[in-house]
């Protein structure tokens, strides 16, 4: 199948523009993250004061509980209100940019697929591009469910931008067909599942890291004092991690399973402890640990968050170290 050079060039442009837009979006979120803090803190303080008053005077637990749910307590000073509004405006612009970047990112992927007439994840560059897109999509879904964590986007975008930069520079390869071993419909199924799961795992990885920061701060207020004031409560971060992991884990399992089925057809055995298989297995076990840890007394919270971070570290290790350093059957998927 011939390669369409024009489409491939358009794909590259889309990719670069998307990366650039992500960087700009990141700055906007950073503004919201830092300058929204003043207003947020003030709002929080007012809310606490109000809750105490309500609790003391009325004594109705139901009303007080409802009171905590109202996002903006009415008694705010005008300057605080203004500060919140300004920061929120930056945040909303950031989301718009994020969506725009995501669309360009998607078009880069689609164009690459059209240029090569195959699924556009046949090498590391394309794989990373797709994983990052999946991470952005996952984060947008999380934002819909938990709009209050919008300002955390900067922490999610940071690894995405780093990965996209690495992909676009060190790992970039020109569009080309894939070798016979990869020419199978399993490429579409197995690698898609791996991409979706890995992209989704990025979000709980980041959320768990933030959880640990927040946790360290709560244990000792002197630690991460600057950063922690910007972070939501531990329960929110834990919930984001758990909900995303629980969805990603079965997809990941499905991906590994399809990999085994494909390996049986391509290499003559469904499991052979090839380095990639081994590390995929390790990552699977680590995420299984996370799910168990979250259900075991004494392991909830901080230890579980550590396990989730470890899980994502293994996923990244599997992507870079195994593809680039060790020689295994998956090496051709490299650069």
């Amino acid at each position, binding site marked *: 199948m011939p390669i369409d050079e024009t489409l491939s060039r358009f794909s590259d442009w889309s990719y670069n523009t998307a990366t650039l837009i992500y960087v700009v979006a990141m700055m906007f979120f950073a503004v919201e993250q830092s300058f929204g803090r003043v207003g947020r803190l003030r709002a929080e303080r007012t809310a606490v004061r109000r809750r105490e008053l309500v609790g003391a005077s009325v004594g109705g637990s139901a009303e007080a509980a409802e009171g905590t749910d109202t996002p903006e307590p009415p008694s705010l000073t005008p300057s605080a209100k203004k500060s919140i509004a300004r920061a929120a405006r930056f945040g909303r612009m950031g989301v718009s940019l994020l969506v725009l970047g995501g669309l360009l990112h998607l078009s880069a992927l689609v164009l690459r697929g059209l240029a090569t007439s195959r699924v556009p994840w046949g090498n590391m560059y394309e794989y990373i591009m797709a994983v990052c897109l999946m991470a952005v999509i996952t984060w947008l879904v999380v934002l819909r469910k938990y709009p209050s964590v919008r300002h955390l986007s900067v922490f999610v975008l940071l690894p995405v931008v780093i990965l996209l930069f690495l992909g676009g520079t060190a790992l970039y390869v020109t569009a080309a*067909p894939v*070798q016979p071993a990869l020419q199978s419909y399993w490429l579409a199924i197995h690698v898609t599942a791996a991409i979706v799961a890995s992209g989704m795992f990025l979000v709980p990885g980041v959320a768990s890291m933030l959880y640990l920061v927040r946790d360290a701060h709560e244990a000792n207020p002197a630690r991460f004092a600057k950063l922690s004031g910007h972070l939501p409560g531990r329960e929110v971060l834990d919930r984001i991690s758990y909900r995303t992991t629980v969805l990603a884990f*079965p997809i990941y399992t499905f991906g590994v399973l399809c990999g085994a089925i494909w390996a049986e*057809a*391509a290499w003559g055995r469904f499991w052979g402890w*090839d380095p990639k298989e081994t590390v995929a297995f390790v990552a699977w*076990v680590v995420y299984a*640990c996370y799910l*168990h840890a979250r259900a075991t007394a004494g392991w909830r919270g901080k230890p579980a968050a550590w396990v989730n971070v470890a899980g994502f570290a293994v996923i990244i290790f599997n992507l870079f170290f195994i593809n680039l350093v060790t020689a295994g059957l998956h090496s051709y998927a490299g650069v």
Partner: protein
Amino acid sequence: MTSEDGPGYRSTPPRRALALARNTWRGLTSMRTALILLFLLAVAAMPGAMLPQRSLNEPKVQQYISQHGWWGELLDQLGFFTVYSSVWFSAIYLLLMVSLVGCLVPRSVEYLRSMRARPVLTPRNLARLPHHAGGTVTSSADDVLAAARSRLRGWRKTEHDEGDGRRSISAEKGYLRETGNLIFHFAILALIISFALGKMYTYEGQVIVHADGSQFCNSGIYAYDSFQPGLRIDGTELTPFCVKVNHFTPTYTPLGQPLRYTADIEYSSGADLTSGTWRPYQLEVNEPLRTVGDRVYLLGHGFSPVFTVTFPNGETRTQTTQWQPVDPTTLLSSGATKFDPPGISDPEKRRNKQLAVTGLFAPTAAFSGKILTSAGPVLTQPAVAVDIMRGDLGLDSGRGQSIFSIDRSMVAKGALERVERENLRLGQSVTLDDGTKVRFDGVQRWVSLQVSHDPTQVWVLGFAVSMLVGLVLSLLVKRRRVWVRVAPATGGEAGGRTVVEVGGLARTDQAGYGDEFENTAADLLDQDTRSS
């Protein structure tokens, strides 16, 4: 529970042993231990990815050991080059399996009990539950309960009459969560057992076959170039079938990137063997031949240069020996084609006159000066750069030697020496000092096939799929309860006849239950608007 202090308890050795066993069992089957074992499994599997493994690449293991001195030796002693069959790795997963069984048995019993149990009684104060709603409606208590019954279709329900006209329904849903969880864990156990059984009865063999109608039969280990039997395989139980390789066609892009490898084969198995029937099949990289429980794979391919030697007495010998690709992208190959001189019956003399044509083969020759390289994998301008060796090849020495090379120790001993070095294109020849002529006649293709046999892999697949189904159920189904209580209005409420209270509790993860509860509660409290 501390029976040691109880009257009549005597600490006898059997009792102590029993206590030890019981405590060990409890410790082993606790969630904490399972979690730690799971961690250990992850950590222990890791060296297999970082260090070369015997099962994958023996030469690399040897190289690693020789490069790392005592450290390599130590790792070898500790089984770090055979991680997945090492004692420590096996110990971890066996303990994990025991722990799993210990966890699953009581849970299954509990599960069976809970499947027959009725939903729990309605709590007295529904307002204390995490989810709660209440109000007064104009419809009668019976209507509200009927509506609740139909709204909660598919839930397991039970009704209670609490006196004073108060009645309630308690309902529970999401039993599939535990079902899925148990399926998942049992399927893992079964998968590991099938995997282990598979390792007993599996075999795998590799063989190189010339793509010129040559035949290979799965009749015994001797038919293979290399063979890896399972623990219970001694070579007598191979499934009989034969494969004939007629043709091999690679397709490349103009830049020499491979697009497709196709081998036209014929095979004969089962009843076809006795009737002599051959069936055609197109063997490709992702399309193995599956017949009578065995699979035949196309693993690789390469070239066999054809050399014809005309000896001084006029006799000719033609040899087609496979050479080994050394560069997978350009298929530059190296090898050794070995000849025995004809007409010499004295083994001593014959040994001094043996010939070997060794060197490099390039499918698309590119010379830089006298040095041969290959410009691409396509067979367009084949050429060889050969050293012709004469003397004793050491074939009778009793030592096995590689088909791809000569025994270098014979050269070192001086028993074998180079008599000519030449670059030959197709059809060209070189004449040695004694009048022997060596001609590069042609090129033949060969394919390397792998035959695999694993009787349990279908089971493994089945259990893996059940595992996935169980996992999805156990992670995505939510176990939750809802209670509805109705009571006649006491008169204080404006226009209402029935006081309705709804309470809800998610038994597992809270998130996501709120919406469902709100909808249910709203439906029940909006009786009037709905019925009108």
